[in-house]
């Protein structure tokens, strides 16, 4: 599975999104279940999937699907 596939899978599983969802529209507090609880689950899922540990500012900054991709790049995850 590619990194992007792993990334998408986390979103599908946590926020009940269909495969091929429109990433641009997926944002914290707009997407169903992506509230503070969903956010902690997302952070944990991404840390596990890519074996990384986010810094505070990145946990707070990961507020949309698109931003998540940019943040993961900082941790050397090629997307």
């Amino acid at each position, binding site marked *: 599975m590619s990194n992007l596939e792993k990334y998408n899978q986390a979103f599908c599983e946590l926020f009940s999104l269909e495969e091929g969802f429109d990433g641009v529209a997926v944002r914290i507090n707009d997407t169903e279940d992506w509230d503070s*609880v969903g956010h902690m689950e997302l952070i944990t899922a991404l840390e596990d999937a890519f074996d990384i540990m986010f810094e505070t500012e990145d946990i707070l900054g990961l507020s949309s699907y698109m931003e998540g991709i940019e943040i993961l790049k900082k941790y050397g995850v090629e997307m």
Partner: protein
Amino acid sequence: MFLELDKKDGKKIALTDSGKQIVSYEEIINFGKNFYEVIGRRTLIFVLCSNCVGAAAGYLGAMIHHIVPLMLGASMDRQLLGELVRVYHPEYIWKPVSMVEDHERILLERYQYVLVATGLKSYPLYEELSLLLTTSGSTGSPKLVRHSYGNLEAQARNISAFFELDDMEKPMLDLPINYTYGLSVLNSHLYSGATVLLTSMNPLNPGYWEFLKTNEATSITNVPYYYEILKKLRFFRMELPSLRTISQGGGKLNEELHKEFAEYAQNTGRRFIVTYGQTEGSARMAWLPPKYALSKCGSIGKAIPNGHLFLVDESGNEITEPYTIGEMVYEGPNVTLGYAQSGEDLILGDERHGILYTGDMVKTDKDGFFYIVGRKKRFLKLWGYRVGLDECENIIKSAFDVECACIGNDECMEIYVTTEKDHDKIRRYISDKTNINSSAFKVCYIEKLPRNEAGKILYSKL
């Protein structure tokens, strides 16, 4: 006057919120006069709350003038709100200006909040009735907790005493103020002449930390889940020079986390204070003094000042032996009057006479510290918020044509239904109704619910 608000320094800031609104003690008192001039008499109102100056000012204006507020979350399900209006007949609603509907006439507008009349007539109110709160806010259960004026006075006085609060405090208040625990932070700090920092943001929002730092918050108070988030956010490495007190309540913090926060507090010269409470006891009933935070890790401590805690066995006899489990009973001036289930109940007087059976199964150690081991009543605390299991069953049964039984722990509610279909729909529906993330609910199929001869569900067999 309520919380002796008129005895504070009038120019001092009482409330500030993350929407940049600020009010002094004097302004609150003046606003209260306006509020009363419009309403004109003792009656029932609903206050639809978010953590902002508008909601808090409406609450205080009502309390100062003996108008009885029912505090509800502004984001609560509309249908459930409608049911509460039908059951309790509030004469007025104080709500965010964004919630005004076209046909409504605005009687007063301040701090981005408005007062509208419902056209309903309030039921008669018991003379000592001061405030109503929901027991299980999220499920919109019509069951309310009736508070007296004495309850809130005792709450403010006792909490400010054991926390040693003074007018230098600036507590971060992000716990909803329609929730007993959040409201107790507001009351106890205003009673102490402090400045309360109100926000509906959560710690995953960068603005939360900016608000906390800019205003130099001196304390944080929250439920166990918040402390899990803080740990994940590398809280222990943050620079927060103004922060002096870290307080936790609203459910049991796991022992490992308790220890980590207690050690952090000890190493950085801060106080870590665990408390225990319930809406029925006007929030806090027990506290663990910070000097015992490490040596009595996992304990809820002892009774708060002016309160008394003891354990009883199944026949109601007091247990005096340590390490014996019994139901914990609290006695004190903050024990509420009782419940209301309908508008007619608002005339009821004191049904508890200062004694509350908490429903928590507890043991003590040899030094008299209390430890919670289980729960007798049918509710869970999901992410720190109380959710009634029977109420959830009713919500599901009335929306789907199924038999349903709910059980679980504070991590997850298991919903057993007699259908193999609609599991996702049911999960989504209960999540929407309770306003709780759907990951807290698991739907399971069962062919037939286990019942005894009388037809009662045997939850232990699920």
